[in-house]
């Protein structure tokens, strides 16, 4: 099955190509856009990025598999990134992650249709630990008791990461 970028994405990619001496630097942006449009980076999505930017499939594959935000399998609509790194751990980050895990019935790394649950490394919100990141929205100073309300909010108002791609 061959995929195609939307007209809007094609325009964005073309505009970005003007900002660099070659097309290769646009690969991260194109992968973000492909993930936004197709939900995940299938082999076909990687091929599309390759043909769009005149890059070999192997190169695109290498890049896509290096960075943690890119996913090769379908995921949930909202990715819930729960930081458990040192500052968050010291103030209960693992308890928050466990609560998300129990409420969503997802182990970290797993997805449902609505959510992907991710145990995240430091998200630069240490002064408000424990911190949870969902797209452009931060949940700060989170306690396990707040987790149910956060999930309800995200069900009402999903935060797909592609909104800024």
């Amino acid at each position, binding site marked *: 099955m061959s995929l195609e970028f939307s007209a809007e994405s094609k325009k964005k990619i073309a505009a970005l190509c003007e900002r660099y001496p070659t097309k290769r630097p646009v690969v991260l942006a194109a992968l973000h856009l492909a993930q936004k449009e197709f939900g995940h980076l299938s082999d076909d999505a990687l091929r599309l990025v390759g043909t769009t930017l005149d890059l070999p499939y192997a190169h695109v594959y290498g890049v896509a598999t290096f960075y*943690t935000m890119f996913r090769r399998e379908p995921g949930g609509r909202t990715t819930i990134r729960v930081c458990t*790194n*040192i*500052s968050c751990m010291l103030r209960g980050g693992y308890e928050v992650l466990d609560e998300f895990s129990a409420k969503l019935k997802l182990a970290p790394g797993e997805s449902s249709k609505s959510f992907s649950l991710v145990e995240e*490394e430091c998200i*630069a919100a240490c002064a408000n630990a424990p911190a949870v990141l969902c797209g452009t929205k931060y949940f700060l100073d989170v306690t396990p008791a707040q987790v149910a309300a956060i999930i309800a909010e995200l069900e009402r108002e999903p935060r797909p990461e592609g909104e800024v791609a």
Partner: protein
Amino acid sequence: MALADRNTKLVSAKFGNEDAKTLAGYEKLGGYQMLRKALAMRPEDIANEVKASNLRGRGGAGFATGVKWGFVPKDAKEVHLVCNADESEPGTCKDRELIYWDPHLLVEGMVISAFALKAKHNYIYIRGEMMREYAVIAKAVEEAYARGYLGKNILGSGFECHLTVHRGAGAYICGEETALLNSLEGLRGQPRLKPPFPAIKGLFGNPTIVNNVETLMNVPFIVDKGGAWFAALGPGRSGGTRMLCVSGHVNKPGVYELPIGITFRELIDEVCGGVWKGRKAKAVIPGGTSMPPLTYDELDVPIEFDALMTDERIKPVEIAPGVPFDMGGGRQLRSMAGSGGVVVMDDHTDIPKAVWRIMKFYAHESCGQCTPCREGTGWMTKVAKRVADAQGKPGDLELLASIAHGIAGNTICALGDAAAWPMLGFLTKFRPDFEAALAASGAAA
């Protein structure tokens, strides 16, 4: 000209002011006036002011910004300025706030710096996870273009400057400047061998200066009031103020702009309301998890680049009890001011568990290029985990130290050191905690 006090706010002056985030609001507060002033100066005069200011890199290394700029070859045809906005060092949360609250100050600082460096095509490399901040800075850049602060012939000066915001996609290593450049070029974010240093051969093979967000945001103030004024704000060879991010077991965690040279004890007790629950600080990470920790007795040291490296009140890191770690040429490792991320752990903290979590991070983020780091960070995580879980084996502490020592200094980039130093540092200063964990495992240390 005087030392900064706790009310001196430069880069954080507009925190909490929603209006200042817009171009109109920023201009109303005097925004882009320093760019006007700079464009009437000679580029080399700006560079000289920055040199005189004793501005030091706020990303972690504390290298003198003016000196770094001076490495660009005079006959360079094309130069790039890249802002490192890949903030990911655990415990560090200042650049994210700075971008969010004052995006135009970053743009203004970059255009001025680009003018001083004669750099035409410039980039902000922003961490992929910072989606909210990406939206903020991308909008600011767009506004600046529309108003003629970016683009061709800026404010009629003839200077052409372009700024592109480049999103990462999740990789701590891309905060390392050569990994960042590779990522910007559309490659996997793996560090390059140095030399050549980026100032000689960086982005697209051209001389490139990579500066941290906070560093660049200080430049307009230097143009405004002069390098000597900025230098006088701080002690010794460290000019200006410092953004400190305090997290962990304090009553008032936060991101604070403070005088350079405030001590850890003053920071914790006076600024952050003391350690929570009436407890005592046990361990303090001074500037991001890559830096060796301090003990309660070492907290009277000023938070200043040189002091953290040389103050004799800080016990040097050892590879075994009584055997100092040699950084090369007999140089001892005490600690470093790093990224400004101060993590406070109280006296109830499970130190081996905290160290396991720190090691797990480095194992996750190792780019895999160098064997000592790729394998060693994984081994340290595994061994630290079993020690923390009271499943340790006899000799595990020596094993941890020997793996760390095998990584330090033997990798292309500093990520290896960043994992090894805290491992050795915690073992040096909190050995009884590890010994107790081993005893609980039924294994004698």
